[in-house]
């Protein structure tokens, strides 16, 4: 009798609990896919030369949403994927893409000059603007955004560069709002860009 009662009690309790709905708050609908920074602070300014022949600073693009990333034209893995993703996101945005500016700053000042960056970026999207400069200028830009890069020299003397691969999302007022880690699809950028373009 006791055994039966115990089993019934146990089954009843487990059944009641299993039927209980999940108890976790739903995330807000306007949650970014990227990581967000609060409070929003002004993005560090750049003082570089642009692949379009003009001085490159972020103030130039005030009023637009800027997607800023760091890389180099000889990159065989990460950079082509990042740039293709950003180009794909702009295409998906349609006319709204006119208010989105991609800025790609080199981490390889030895090999990347304005002409090289223009050719490289133009193969993905002709509106992309590259940032080039001296070693000191590039180092300062990297430091201000917390970007790390490491030069790896091959036995034949050639080299590649390992570097941070996140994409910084800067709002129309120049505030650094969000950071998208490497690997997100174009749709995630479109999702977040729509939020930023509305703001």
């Amino acid at each position, binding site marked *: 009798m*006791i*055994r039966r009662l*115990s089993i019934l*009690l*146990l*089954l009843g*309790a*487990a*059944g009641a*609990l*299993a039927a*209980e*709905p*999940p*108890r*976790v*708050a739903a*995330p807000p609908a306007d*949650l*970014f*896919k990227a*990581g*967000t*920074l*609060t*409070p929003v*602070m002004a993005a560090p300014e750049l003082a570089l030369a642009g692949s379009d022949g003009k001085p490159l600073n972020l103030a130039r693009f005030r009023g637009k949403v800027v997607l800023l990333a760091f890389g180099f034209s000889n990159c065989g893995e990460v950079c082509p994927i990042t740039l293709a993703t950003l180009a794909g996101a702009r295409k998906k945005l349609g006319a709204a893409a006119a208010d989105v500016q991609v800025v790609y700053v080199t981490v390889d000042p030895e090999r990347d000059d304005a002409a090289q960056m223009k050719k490289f970026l133009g193969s993905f999207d002709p509106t992309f603007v590259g940032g080039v400069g001296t070693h000191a200028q590039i180092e300062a830009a990297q430091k*201000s*955004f*917390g970007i*790390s890069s490491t030069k790896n020299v091959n036995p034949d003397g050639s080299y590649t560069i390992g570097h*941070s691969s*996140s994409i*910084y999302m800067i709002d129309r007022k120049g505030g650094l709002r969000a*950071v*998208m*880690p*490497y690997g997100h699809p174009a749709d995630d950028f479109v999702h977040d860009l729509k939020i930023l373009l509305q703001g």
Partner: protein
Amino acid sequence: MSSRRAWLWWVPLTCVAAALGWAGFAPIHVPSHDELFEIPKGTYARRMKGDQVEILPSQIRLTLGLNDVLLLRNLDDVPQVFGPTIMMPGQSFRLPFEKASRYDFACTAHASGQMTILVEEVPVMPWSKIHWRIREYWENRKG
């Protein structure tokens, strides 16, 4: 065996079985999606003095659909780099995860300079729920 002696056995057994039943079948409750970690004021200064301060765990475990957002607060006096970004003093960085995977990030708040985020699928089977609850309990106890 008398009915009194039988109670001595069946009451604790029933309690253990009920606890396992609850742990295996009841929905997991977490108060928020955010898993908060803070970089305390003075972390950089202590490190500069040579202290091997470990104020964040070197590995953080998150679960999709439960605690799947990493929330970092920089309460230190200097900027801190966490993986994809730099956090100014007083700034917070909220990073959601949507894919179960292992993520390795650079992090200046760690003496090693590295931090790993393990994002796991939500436990569905009773045994995996029990395992999840026991692990969370021990990790919370360790602080």
